[in-house]
């Protein structure tokens, strides 16, 4: 089918978070890497990710959180996706998802338990992110 060779990512910065720079960089990096990107910008609610993912038949939702409240904001997203018929859609999160110096393994585990497929530590580069997404979405190259 036309238009559908590209994998579709829905991206945005969750909650009341206004850190806009990283989001713009990721949008360009993902587009450059051959993804179709639906960018919701900053201050994105869980419902907005879901609505956009439904309409665009997205292959993954990429959540950014920079201001330290990520854990609170991300809670329940997986359950809402299930409810909305987005069963099994890959959910990934990154940025500065929690406050202060915590062991990232613990953080990662908590996000896994919340239904996220992958959680990334601070400072993860766009290249690493793209690689991980390719792997997660079973893309070659």
């Amino acid at each position, binding site marked *: 089918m036309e238009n559908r060779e*590209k994998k579709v990512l829905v991206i945005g910065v969750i909650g*009341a978070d*206004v850190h806009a720079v990283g989001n713009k960089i990721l949008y360009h990096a993902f587009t450059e890497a051959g993804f179709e990107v*639906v960018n919701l910008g900053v*201050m994105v609610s869980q419902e907005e990710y879901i*609505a956009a993912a439904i*309409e*665009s*038949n997205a292959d993954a939702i990429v959540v950014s959180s920079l201001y330290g409240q990520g854990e609170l904001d991300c809670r329940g997203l997986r359950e809402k996706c299930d409810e909305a018929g987005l069963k099994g859609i890959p959910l990934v999160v990154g940025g500065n998802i929690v406050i202060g110096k915590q062991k990232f393994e613990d953080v990662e585990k908590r996000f896994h338990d919340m239904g996220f497929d992958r959680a990334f530590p601070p400072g993860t580069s766009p290249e690493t992110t793209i690689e991980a997404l390719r792997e997660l979405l079973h893309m070659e190259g």
Partner: protein
Amino acid sequence: MKPILLIDFGSTYTKVTAVDVEAEVILGTAQSFTTIQTDINDGLNGALKLLEAKTGHLQYEKCYACSSAAGGLRMVTSGLVPELTSEAAKLASLGAGAKVVGLYSFQLTEDDLQNIQALKPDIFLLVGGTDGGNTECILHNARMLATLPPKFPIIIAGNRTAARECARILKDHPVHVCPNVMPKFGVLNIEPTQQKIRQIFLDRIVQAKGLSKATALLDDILMPTPSAVLQAMELLSKGTEEESGIGDLVAVDVGGATTDVYSMADGMPQGMNTVYKGIPEPFAKRTVEGDIGMRYSIRGIVEAAGIRRIASMAGLSEDRAEELVTYLSQNTDRVPDGDSELTALDYALASCAVETAVARHAGTMEETYTLMGLTYVQSGKNLTHVKQIIVTGGSLIHTENTEKIARHAQYSPAQPASLRPKAADVWVDRTYILAAMGLLSAHYPNVALRIMKKELEKHGYSE
């Protein structure tokens, strides 16, 4: 002299306007009851006779018409997510001058199909999915619609990947394929669909509604009346190369059954620390409040504003106000006619109708305290900077309170989140010429614009 005749076949009245496009003046206006059940020409001829009594016999060079008779252009839409493609379908339909009598999201059910059949739409608009996005929903809905008898045309304007397949599924129905109303997330492309709606109106609906008998007289364009008004408003706002417009505006038409609101403004966020949410709305936007009207929908006004507020604005006791509301809902052609209680009540009702309808049309600004302090989240159009308000409709024209009523379209400290005009001029369409000027604008935009600027009566300015 070059006289042109403009006709508006309304649901109740057939209104005729004679214009001399050389002298750029209105020669006269007249109206008579619309006679759709028997022969539409009876009402038209009645109106023309009254007009001729005012203007003398005229040899019209051209004759153009619009219509909202026989229920207007009734549409049902179905999309996927309510705030996204379903909203896009609604904006497209309203902007084409239609009345949206049914609005569905997600997958249609058997019960929905029964309702749709009972609604007997003139056109069905089937959308859903961005291009390359979800196809499941629109295909399901096409299959559901295919089980209905082919009584109405279906416009397919969803995910382009599924368009052909939908057309095949609906092969026994009159279908029209248009570009997606929302090709990408947050991007609207509603004009092609609106053009198709107008074309179907012209080709099929005019006949079905018994209007074709009158078409012998007409030269060109027969469009839904709201579509003509929308064109007039866009012209008045933007102007032409030769004649400047009046800039961004909001127009309100309070009717007996519905209240229409138009805005001509970009309305996107102005402040740096404002985040926009939801789909961007079109420059020329129309909304219709089906539950807000002075007689048939009088209950809706009371529900929205509360009887206490209406009674106090009218200076009546709550019991008396309630009594009169019931009376008016049963006597829908009753006008105040000098009765002081009814005049006061109509003032309160019209004010609340304007306030409710414009508040629903305009966007909202929410303040959220983030860790950094105050941030603003805007959804819908910001109309606070709009400096022109145009009002029309019987209850606003035939009263001395026009300006006071119209002021309710403005920003109010009681509803600080509602992004309505902060300070504005009020213009009144006393002679009811907006639809006629919309028709005229297709061929004589400069003339139509200059006549509107002359004819609309301007009330005071408030800062």
